[in-house]
């Protein structure tokens, strides 16, 4: 037998590829979705929708959830408008939370998903919450992770410091980089700073590098549009929307989240009357940094929702 040297590039091995992918067009904007399912999937197999978050990243953010969850459930993801394979519409209004929620509904239809359990991270909490409130027949449950919702103090990214997003400065350091002009001048610096703040845990260099790479697949102008759109739910609508949610919910939040403080997760769990899983020492993106714990929590939640409905 001859020897066969073979060089394997580092990223050639993805743990799980989609079983189906497609594009849905809504108001002229193309949204690309992926579906994964277990080999023995049947009509009773629950569907988990891993919703997009802010367009600074795309569906690869869920790369540590998909291979595990897709062994037990159907899993649907989509690239949120503004990043990945989806379109980047040129008007700010196209990026408000209602647009993301409507994309979610279209993706449910396009993937033949009658009902699903949603998982929303950070900004993704807004559209997940909206979908659950407005389409109770389609949403069986929601897992909120580090929800960027105006519970108590506003999340840092909503506008920090107040009106600081538009202030022109001589130079931009630290959180001053969260600024329209800074994004145009030094997008990569902002992105590097932002994700360094997202991952406060040790051993996060790969997660930061991944996120910075995904952020570089979109651009400053697109993110400025998302910011101008008001992508997060406001205070006034939050109470009404949470009251309308009838399905089971779960909140997961890290104690060391420097983007959305832990108290927001505590507050949302109180508003919804649902359990809170606190990740001691966790930062803003536990799905990337604590995948085993997050995956087990999602799976347990999905199974409890299914059992609750069978009972």
């Amino acid at each position, binding site marked *: 037998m001859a020897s*066969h040297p073979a060089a394997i590039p580092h990223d*050639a091995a*993805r743990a799980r590829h989609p079983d189906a992918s497609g594009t849905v067009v809504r108001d002229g904007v193309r949204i690309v979705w992926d579906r994964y399912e277990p080999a023995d999937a049947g009509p009773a197999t629950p569907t988990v929708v891993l919703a997009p978050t802010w367009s600074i990243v795309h569906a690869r953010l869920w790369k540590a959830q998909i291979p595990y969850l897709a062994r037990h459930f159907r899993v649907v993801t989509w690239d949120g408008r503004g990043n990945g394979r989806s379109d980047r519409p040129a008007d700010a209004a196209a990026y408000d939370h209602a647009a993301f929620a409507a994309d979610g509904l279209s993706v449910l239809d396009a993937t033949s998903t009658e009902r699903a359990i949603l998982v929303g991270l950070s900004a993704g909490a807004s559209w997940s919450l909206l979908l659950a409130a407005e389409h109770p027949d389609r949403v069986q449950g929601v897992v909120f992770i580090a929800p960027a919702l105006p519970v108590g103090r506003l999340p840092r990214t909503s506008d920090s410091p107040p009106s600081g997003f538009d202030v022109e400065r001589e130079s931009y350091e630290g959180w001053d980089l969260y600024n329209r002009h800074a994004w145009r001048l030094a997008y990569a610096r902002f992105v590097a700073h932002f994700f360094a703040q997202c991952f406060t845990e040790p051993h996060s260099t790969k997660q930061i590098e991944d996120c910075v790479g995904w952020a570089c697949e979109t651009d400053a102008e697109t993110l400025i549009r998302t910011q101008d759109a008001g992508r997060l739910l406001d205070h006034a609508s939050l109470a009404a929307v949470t009251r309308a949610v009838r399905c089971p919910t779960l909140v997961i939040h890290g104690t060391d989240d420097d983007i959305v403080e832990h108290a927001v997760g505590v507050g949302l769990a109180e508003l919804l009357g649902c359990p809170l899983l606190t990740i001691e020492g966790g930062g803003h993106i536990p799905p990337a940094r604590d995948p*085993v714990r997050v995956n087990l929590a999602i799976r347990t939640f999905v199974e409890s929702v299914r059992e609750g409905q069978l009972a």
Partner: protein
Amino acid sequence: MTPIPPLPPVPPSLASTHDRARLPDRDGWAADESGVRIHWEVYGEGEPTIVLLPSTPIVHSRQWKGQVPYLARHFRVITYDGRGNGRSDRPTEPAAYDGSRIVGDIGRVLDATGTGHAVLVGLCGDGVWPAFRFAAASPDRVEGIVAFAVGVPRLAPPHPWRVQWSFEDELPTDEGWAKVNAHYWRRDYAGFARFFFAAITTEPHSTKVIEDAAAWAVEGSVDAMLADAATGFDLDRDGVEAVVRAVRSPILVVHGSEDHCQPPVRARILAELTGATLVEVEGADHMIPGRHPVLANLLIRDFVRSLRRPTP
């Protein structure tokens, strides 16, 4: 009858079960004729059985934590803590770490777990070389070998930095590879472990792999390491060649192009001598299963499946 000595305390990384992705289905002990107990675990029930060999005594079975949950879904997986670390006994006399004892543990674990034959997977000298010795001596018990970061002595000279300093003598410095020294180990074994794993895990994003491995080393025993280091290696180049050429099972060799522990040329020579398939991972250092688990797992899976492919 001599009383059975108490088992070593369970190291924290093996005791904590709440954040492990996969727990064993069965565990137990195998013992050799001198009473040294080896702790094994069995995961899953597929075919065939894969034994993930310990790189003992420097680390224990958790070194395979990136492999076990995945492989156990497809195959039956056995891990064990090698003598000198983990939940296994930690003898401190060099004779206990003689190559024949370490190789014998493979057979003892196969027997204790009711395993007739298996695919052996090893990393570096403490895993790969015993796999070849066992396969040469017991061909009917080995279906295949996956050799990561080939540590087969004598095939080619070691990296120059590995032999730069005396292991036994007091050295004028503690810097760099001078930490691979018996006196330094006694003074600061944790310092050695941190240095060593950082020096052989040089790719970006390796901090967790380094911290884990250094912690597993510290959970072990510097006395076991010293005893292991005191055992000699009794074969010359021809003797080593005779062993690897005697292996009849299929072999997969996986080696990083930037391996700072084992020179890549050892992998090439081993593949040439045995006809093994060689996969060189461009840019990878020594700890491929820990640092590139998806790649390592898929390579193991595909290799194992190829063993059972029906011939047309």
